[in-house]
């Protein structure tokens, strides 16, 4: 494994992106605007006027925005690790081409995750800027939420890459989005504090990576009190990234160099 090799894979990701970025413009720019408009402003007004405003102690839009940033990073991270990885392995076999050069599986994986990190940073910065334009947070607050969002996205990307490399076909990907990503999106504290959940499901939320990401983004951006120590959340996400990377190297090896 060499760092240089991984960086070449990152570079390839950037070159491919130069040609394909148009396809992701909507999710990068339009989705944050739509969500902040519909949920933050539309729904937020109702929340703020009702009893929700009192229990949150801050405008709903402000409460929502950093959590939504974490959730958007999750979706980018999982997205980049699903269909594009399946294409690399199976549909276009571009990974096979890469591995016939001096690049090896670990470099391929770390280069892939490296490129995802670049993408996550870009997407999160754009999101934070839009948050600021909406008046949800100040510019500094928004940018403070970017690093934990990238960490969150990377945890998902790392785990989902390992998962995708195990799949025979894309049906497992649709299932993952339907049964894992969407429920996490809805119930990990993005839209409402998890204390609102029935007591017996509340502990479940604590083990979801997205909840930790949301906590970190919100805590850093808004200076709110953390439910668990932020170092625990950071460590948890870092451990997930490492576990995903190890599993990813294993599953990609089995798949690509049998």
């Amino acid at each position, binding site marked *: 494994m060499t760092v240089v090799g991984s960086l070449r894979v990152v*570079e*390839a990701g950037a*070159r491919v992106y130069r040609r394909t970025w148009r396809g992701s413009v909507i999710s990068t720019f339009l989705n944050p605007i739509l969500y902040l408009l519909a949920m933050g402003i539309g729904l937020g007004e109702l929340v703020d006027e009702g009893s929700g405003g009192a229990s949150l102690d801050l405008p709903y839009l402000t409460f929502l925005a950093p959590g939504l940033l974490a959730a958007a990073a999750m979706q980018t991270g999982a997205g980049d690790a699903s269909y594009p990885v399946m294409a690399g392995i199976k549909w276009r076999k571009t990974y096979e*081409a890469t591995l*016939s*050069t001096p*690049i090896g599986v670990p470099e391929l994986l770390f280069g892939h995750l490296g490129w995802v990190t670049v993408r996550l940073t870009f997407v999160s910065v754009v999101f934070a800027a839009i948050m600021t334009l909406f008046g949800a947070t100040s510019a500094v607050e928004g940018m403070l939420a970017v690093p934990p969002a990238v960490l969150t996205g990377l945890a998902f990307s790392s785990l989902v890459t390992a998962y995708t490399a195990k799949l025979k076909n894309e049906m497992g990907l649709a299932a993952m989005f339907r049964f894992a990503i969407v429920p996490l999106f809805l119930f990990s504290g993005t839209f409402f504090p998890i204390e609102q959940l029935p007591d017996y499901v509340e502990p479940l939320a604590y083990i979801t990576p997205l909840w930790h990401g949301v906590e970190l983004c919100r805590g850093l951006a808004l200076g709110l009190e953390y439910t668990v120590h932020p170092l625990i959340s950071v460590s948890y996400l870092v451990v997930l990234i490492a576990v995903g990377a190890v599993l990813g190297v294993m599953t990609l090896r089995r798949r690509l160099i049998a």
Partner: protein
Amino acid sequence: MANPLVSARGLTKHFDELVAVDAIDFDVQEGEAFGFLGPNGAGKSSTMRMIGSVSPLTAGTLSVLGLDPARDGPQIRARIGVVPQDDNLDLELTVYENLLIYGRYFGLSKAVIDGRVAELLRFTQLEDRRDSPVDPLSGGMKRRLVIARGLINTPELLLLDEPTTGLDPQARHLLWDRLYRLKQEGVTLIITTHYMDEAEQLCDRLVIMDKGKIAAEGAPRDLIDRYSTREVLELRFPVGTQAVNAEHLDGIAHKTEVLPDRVLLYTDNADHAHSKVLQAGFEPESTVSRRSTLEDVFLSLTGRTLVD
């Protein structure tokens, strides 16, 4: 003789229970065009992927360019070119971008790559396609692009896995011509194919592979001399009567092979055999007399045809 460029002893590849390559031995000398001829599933690609230092061996020893694929994979891959069986191009990118990205994996600078791209696109007659996307290119053009890509690092050894499968005759001949030129420039070629004419045209020496084993080895002409007669007479009898007719053809030729749609008579003089067949009162619907080919060698070694 100098040290071989590639040398395998007892080379074996298993996929779980399945034995894809079964303890084969071979040597490839520098500057030669070496072929693996065999039907679907013979183990050609599995062998190529081991030589390409991508797929680990199950057993045996393999040296490539004097190095050990298990230990020196990246160094080996840096010095060889690979044309895989499937065109694994990035269809969203242009011809140039495919070559650029691939070249960068070898650590070549953009300036060096740009120079080579110009030369390689001329060589593969794709100059006017440099900036077009890959997706709409014809099969033959894609194949030529994969070959150009495999040459971006000026390899000493080029591995070609079924370079012309799926191409029309004109595209095949163009490719053969390019491969022939590479060989003249001193590039060692290892080619797999299930086309006997391709093997005869391109290979100095080849092995015939079947079910993971090597059935025979030699120069195309030698193999034909050793395992077949000089000529072959093909007789086509009415549907369903090949075997019945063949039973009574004994003695006319050295050997008789019955295929589902025709009977082959192995003889040193096909015209002579033809007269004898007619004299004996047989009435084949059509006859062809021809020289023996590697297809006949394969048939005589395995009892089956190469392309089914």
